[in-house]
């Protein structure tokens, strides 16, 4: 490990939220265009929410698109149909995702391990078809259109979401809050419980932890965070495509997490960034993006299961004593 890298990573590990936010602050200037940065920010949050359930608790859900989509649609519909303030619309989006998460989680947690993935995929499809059919509210196949937030004054500045840079930093505010929350939870006693559940469910139960209830709680938290990502996405795109709810969108969260590094704090962002950047580049070169991403995903599963950031952290852990993960 390069001699400079170890102390840097140690510093990052100790102040993970701050480090990530610092990085995200300068991030737009690293990207070829700002809209990509916004996209990565949003999907990074989506992956963080998913990672809470998969990377940290060990539950592989294929239904998380439901939360991204519900967040998007409920925020969108609040703005388009109910003409609510965008902040309220976001709150509604997050709340609704949490609720759907509670319902889905209640049904899905009755199953274990390998069934969980199938059940969550199928339950997610209920949400997909539900929104697809409710054309009057959701626009059906064409999606929801017209999710626009008018420019407004704040602290003497004019905030206009048509400017991608402005949009980015406003959304970063939300992401910062979410990341702070996630970090707090992971560092809390509850965080130890969910990791114990991932390591050995039976053992955790034998210690006296109510595994089912803990799982449900993480599920709802995870759903709410993905819902926030969805809410931001609706505002970002000004439309909500119906495919937001399809299970392939769930698969995207899985891929991003694995690419970046499951069970690490920063990994999901790395994964989202790599995935979306690659998509941006590859789709200009070839039509066969699906084959490319599928192959990369398989390669990572076979040879780099810890992901990009995860592998880096792994080497850092071996260079130092086993301590807190980033």
């Amino acid at each position, binding site marked *: 490990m390069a001699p400079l890298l170890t102390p840097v990573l140690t510093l990052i590990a100790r102040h993970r939220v701050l480090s990530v936010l610092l990085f995200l602050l300068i991030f737009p200037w690293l990207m070829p265009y700002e809209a990509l940065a916004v996209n990565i920010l949003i999907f990074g949050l989506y992956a963080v929410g998913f990672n809470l359930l998969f990377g940290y608790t060990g539950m592989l859900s294929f239904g998380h698109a439901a939360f991204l989509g519900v967040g998007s649609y409920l925020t969108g519909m609040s703005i388009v149909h109910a003409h609510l303030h965008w902040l309220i619309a976001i709150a509604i989006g997050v709340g609704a995702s949490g609720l759907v998460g509670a319902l889905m989680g209640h049904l899905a947690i009755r199953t274990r391990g390998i069934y969980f993935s199938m059940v969550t995929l199928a339950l997610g499809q209920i949400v997909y078809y539900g929104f697809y059919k409710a054309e009057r509210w959701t626009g059906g196949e064409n999606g929801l259109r017209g999710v626009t937030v008018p420019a407004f004054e704040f602290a003497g500045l004019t905030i206009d979401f048509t400017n991608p840079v402005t949009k980015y930093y406003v959304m970063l505010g939300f992401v910062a809050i979410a990341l702070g929350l996630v970090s707090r939870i992971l560092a809390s006693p509850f965080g130890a419980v969910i990791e114990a559940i991932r390591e050995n469910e039976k053992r955790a139960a*034998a210690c006296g932890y109510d595994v089912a209830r803990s799982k449900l709680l993480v599920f709802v938290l995870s759903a709410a965070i993905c819902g926030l990502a969805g809410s931001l996405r609706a505002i970002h795109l000004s439309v909500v495509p119906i495919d937001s709810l399809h299970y392939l969108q769930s698969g995207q969260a899985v891929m991003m997490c694995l690419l970046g590094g499951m069970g690490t704090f920063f990994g999901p962002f790395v994964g989202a960034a790599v995935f979306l950047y690659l998509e941006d580049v590859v789709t200009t070169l070839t039509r066969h993006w699906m084959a490319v991403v599928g192959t990369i995903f398989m390669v990572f599963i076979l040879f780099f299961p810890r992901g990009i950031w995860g592998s880096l952290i792994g080497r850092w852990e071996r260079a130092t004593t086993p301590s807190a993960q980033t």
Partner: protein
Amino acid sequence: MNAPLIQRHAMDVQADILIEARHISRQFGAFQALTDISVQFRAKHLCAIIGPNGAGKSTFFNILSGAIAPSSGSVLFQGQDITGLEPHEYARRGIAKSFQITNVFKQLSAHENVRVAVQMRHARFDFFSPRAKLAGVAQTAQALLERVGLASLGQKPAGDLAHGQQRSLEVAMALAADPQLLLMDEPTAGMSPEETTVMMDLITELAAERTVILVEHKMKLVMGICKTLIVLHHGQLLAQGSPEDIRANPEVRRVYLGQG
């Protein structure tokens, strides 16, 4: 309840019944694993469940510890019916167990294993306090590690510990809940003679302060230290009583002919 269930020793007139099995039966498909077992276990009595292989000891143990439910019958703990409750509810009521096949958090350090177990009593759904600040929890965990002789191995991943050390770790985790009842399924399985002696000493120590029920098939180990023995055979209760009673019991001798 005619027959005297467990012989009273003069000193233990105060001891009351901690956990009781009433008419426990268990089938697995067509196979009858246990038939109508009724036993009362007294508090602060070191008791062992013994019997030949296939006698149903592990099944009975699993029912007592809440891992599986009986097909019929009930389990009472301190007078309350706990049959069929979730495993974590058993743990919360003060029943701790160590598994037959060592079951620890392999990737976590030994210290973290115990710390997680201790944490259960203090802060379960706390989302916000940094757990590193729960100093009391960490200290208790360290003390427990010392108790079982693993103080210096705290930072090692539990999966890297020697077999006997992992079993000791499990005992530490079981103790973390400060249980009134400690259930141990073949605690010395796979241990060397030295490790076995250490474990049996620890068990004797623990039995002085709380109730311990063992499942063991090494007769010699339990004869010396247990107050009461329960003998199972083909899923039925064959005999129960003090080691002397059991040794003299003709049924038991017949069943164990040729075995230690």
